[in-house]
Each structure stands twice: as structure tokens, then as C-alpha cells.
């Protein structure tokens, strides 16, 4: 029987080699000194890391991505938090429909969403590309914000809220002084998960670029189409470090259950 488990262990190891190997290879190639991607690198250097900062567009688009992801996050939080509270606190008519509406941005293919945003936000509503980008990213962040906060609220004991109210606290006061502090870590996790979702997005942003407006992942795609040097590998390493940081904090804030229970 031991044999079988060993076989399964070996199989699992190979699965992880497949999952993580490519990320390791790309990390190593970023230290190549020559201008062609090689694995393993022949000579080591950090020149491609320097090159990231020499390409003006990487800097501009990085700024755009950060602004759009943070701004959209704030707006999604502003309209998502009350909705998440209503959905997890109360039983009411049409609750299932509301749940479906708030999840729908995940269910609709990203590429379809992106095209519709171009067709309506930019063409029909005549919004500036930057505004459309901001609204589009808010739409895709909303389901993540609502889902993570709702799951954090589902662990909250609402009788505490009732106790505060029966002691004379106002409804709004109770929300800000009792409910909010208790779901603080859930909100932070929601912000981080939604941020990654937006910051890495390609499907929507690819339709919402215009003169002078583009996002970081789109700029990466454009760069890959024109150059095959290790710059993108160097960027990949920096992005993976950022991802690891976020993952570490999300794990600290609410564990891994968000990912395994969907």
C-alpha cells in the first residue's frame, strides 16, 4: 500500500514541477546578460532590470494601472460594502436575483465585457477612455469585493449588533463601531484580491486603450510583440514578488479558505 502512496506523491511532485517550473525558468532567464532569452543564462547581469526603468511607457502605464486599480477598488468598496451587508444580514424577496446580479461580471466572458465597454462606455456614452477604464475595472472588482466581504460577514455574530442597538446605539453608529471593526481583515483581503484581479486584467483593458492611455499588462503584451529580450522576464520577477506579498497578507488576514470554498 505504501507503494501506491509513493506513486501518488511522485505524481503530485511532477504536477508541481509543471506548475512552478515555468515560473522558475522565467525568473532565471531574467538575469541573462545577452539580449536574447536563454535558459540557463550564459552570463549573469541585472541590465534588464535597469532596462525596465529606461522604457518610458512601462512607467506611464504602471502609474495608470495603479490609479485605475486603486480608484476602482475604492468605488467598488463604496457600493459593494452596503450590498454585501444587505445580502448577508437580511432575508428578503429577490435576494437570489440580487446575488446573481452582483456575481454576473464574473460569469460574462471578460473579452465580451471589454468589447461591450468599448461599444457603450466609449462609443455610445462618449466617456473618455480613462473614465471607461476606471468604470470597467470597478465592474470586474465588484463581485470579488462583495463575495469576500460577504464571506467575512457570514462569520460575524449579528447578535452583537442587536445587543449594541438594544443598548441605545444608532443603526449607523452600530455599523461603523461594531460591525466594521469586526470585518476589517475581510475588507482588507477583499481589497487585495480585487486589486490583483484588476491589476493583472488584460481582457477588458485591451479594448480600452487610446492615445496615451494603456495599462501595464497591455504594455507588456505590446513589448513582447516587438522585442524578445529578457526585460519581460525581469518584470515577471518583480510582479511575482508583488503577488507573493499579496498572497502572504491575504493568507494572514483570512486564511486560504476563500480559495478552497467557492
Amino acid at each position, binding site marked *: 500500500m505504501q507503494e*501506491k502512496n509513493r506513486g*501518488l*506523491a511522485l*505524481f*503530485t511532485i511532477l*504536477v508541481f514541477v*509543471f*506548475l512552478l517550473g515555468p*515560473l522558475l*525558468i*522565467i525568473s532565471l*532567464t531574467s538575469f541573462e546578460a545577452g539580449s536574447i*532569452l536563454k*535558459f540557463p543564462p550564459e552570463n549573469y547581469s541585472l541590465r534588464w532590470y535597469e532596462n525596465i526603468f529606461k522604457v518610458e511607457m512601462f512607467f506611464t502605464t504602471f502609474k495608470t494601472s495603479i490609479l485605475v486599480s486603486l480608484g476602482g477598488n475604492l468605488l467598488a468598496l*463604496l*457600493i459593494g460594502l*452596503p*450590498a454585501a*451587508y*444587505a445580502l448577508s444580514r*437580511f432575508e428578503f424577496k429577490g435576494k437570489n436575483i440580487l446575488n446573481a*446580479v*452582483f456575481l*454576473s*461580471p464574473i*460569469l*460574462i*466572458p*471578460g*473579452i*465580451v*465585457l471589454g*468589447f*461591450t*465597454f*468599448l*461599444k*457603450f462606455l466609449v462609443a*455610445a456614452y462618449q466617456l473618455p477612455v480613462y473614465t471607461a477604464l476606471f468604470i470597467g475595472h470597478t*465592474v470586474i472588482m*465588484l463581485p470579488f469585493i462583495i463575495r469576500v466581504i460577504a464571506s467575512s460577514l457570514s462569520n460575524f455574530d449579528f447578535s452583537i449588533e442587536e445587543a449594541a442597538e438594544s443598548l441605545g446605539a444608532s443603526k449607523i453608529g452600530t455599523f461603523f463601531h461594531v460591525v466594521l471593526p469586526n470585518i476589517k481583515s475581510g475588507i482588507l483581503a477583499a481589497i487585495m484580491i480585487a486589486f*490583483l484581479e484588476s491589476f*493583472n486584467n*488584460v*481582457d477588458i483593458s*485591451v479594448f480600452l486603450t487610446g492615445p496615451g492611455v494603456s495599462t501595464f*499588462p497591455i504594455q507588456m*503584451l505590446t513589448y*513582447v510583440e516587438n522585442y524578445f529580450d529578457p526585460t519581460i522576464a525581469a*518584470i*515577471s520577477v518583480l*510582479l*511575482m514578488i508583488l*503577488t*507573493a506579498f*499579496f*498572497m502572504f497578507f491575504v493568507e494572514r488576514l483570512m486564511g*486560504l479558505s476563500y*480559495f*478552497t470554498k467557492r
Partner: protein
Amino acid sequence: MKKRYIYLLALPGVLFLAVFMIVPIILTIGTTFFNENGFTLKAYIDLFKDKYFTDILLTTFKVSVVTTFICILLGFPAAYYISKLGTKKKAFLLLLTIFPLLTSPVVRSFAWMVIIGKNGVINKLLMGIGLIDYPLNILYTPVAIMIGLVHLFLPLIIVSLVGVMENIEIDVLNAAESLGASKMDVFLRVVVPLCVPGLVIGSILVFVGSFTAYTTPALLGGKQRVISTFLYQNAITLNDWQVASIIAAIMIIITFFVTTVMNLVAKKLNPKG
């Protein structure tokens, strides 16, 4: 608590989605069924008569189906192994699974370009050990798209299966074993059936995700189009928004159809009833 007050909490979100997403989506789909003479399916019939389009649709289907099967074949045993580990080891392996899931799809597809390209890692290795004389053409083929998509979605199916398997009570497995079932029997006749609903749901995620993915086929597919890159080509390169809208409608209809049917299947197959 007054009912009206509750709806007021959800109102900003609903309005926001209605104005910026729901109405635009409905209008985009709706208008494809009409021309100046009223209701018609002509635009759809024309598109389906175009062999270039049906080939793309077929390739996309094939790639998505194969990707889903490979993800199950690789993901199921791995998830089973992970779910039986102790708390610390399990958490560590889950972190290693979630990490690629959160990593940018551009980074992940780009990594595969380096590996399967003409001068890539695989070709160098195979030529180095003398197995092949000329580099294999993997990059810019449907196989390349498939490899990239399996890499993209395998973590998703592992993570959701581990969630399902954790809920299987150890007592059930012990009972089967104490009644004389071998480990393999327990796996095939107890674990697998109990996992089927979770497996179907995981498969929906992978299939729909593969069917609609853009970044991976755009980078690894080269000239080989799939339905999402075809939509992009029509919308941006060819500026034909009429055709792009029809493709968008087809994508929504197919994903909703597959999701609904598979969900019904999952309910039917649930041994708990």
C-alpha cells in the same frame, strides 16, 4: 427593519451595474437579432456559413475540451494527495497552488513562450540528447494554447477539489476499509463518486475559462485564432462591430448553455441526492 431600507443598501451597486454592464450587454446581444426589417437570424446564418469562423469555433471547442480533461487527469490525483496531508503540509502545498493562480496570465504565457519556442528549453533539451534533429514546432499551434491553458486552470481545479475532498468524512473512508475495501477500491468507489459534483463544477470553470480565455491564445497561438482572439480581431483590427457583437452573443449563449446543463448534471449525479 424596514424592507425598503434593505433595498436601498443594494441600490447603488445595482444601478451601477445596470447602466454600465447589464443594459449594454442586453443591447449588444439583442440588436444582433434584428435588422431594418425586424427579427432575423440572417447575420448568424451568414457567420456559420463562413468556414473560417466554424473552423475557429471547432478549434476553440477542441482545445477547451482537451484542456478540461487534462486538468481533471492531473488535478484529481494531486488534489487527493494534498487533501490527505497534515494541516501544515497541506497549507504549504495550497499556497504553492494558489501562487500561480494569482500570478499575471501575461507572465505565465510568456514563460511558456520561452520554454516551447523554437530555441526554447524543450527543443534545446531534446536536440541536446539527440532525440530530434530539428526543433519541434510547438509554439503558435493549438497544442501550445492547450499547454498554456492547462497551466492557467490546473491550480483552479486542484484548489476547488481539495475543498470538496476535505468535506468527505474520514469515517466513511475508514468504514469502507474496515469492511474490506482496498485503498484503490476506496478511491475509485467512494472518493470519486462523492467528488463528482465538485468535479463537474470545477470542469465548468475550466471549460468556460478556456473557451473564453484571451491572453494565453493571443500570446501562444500566433496566427492560430480562437473565438476570443477572433472577436478582438473583428472589433479592433477590422473594426466590424456588427460581427464582433454576434461573436460576443455566441460566446455568452454557449457559456450560459454549458454552465446550466453541467450544473443540472452535477445535481443529478450528487449521491447525497
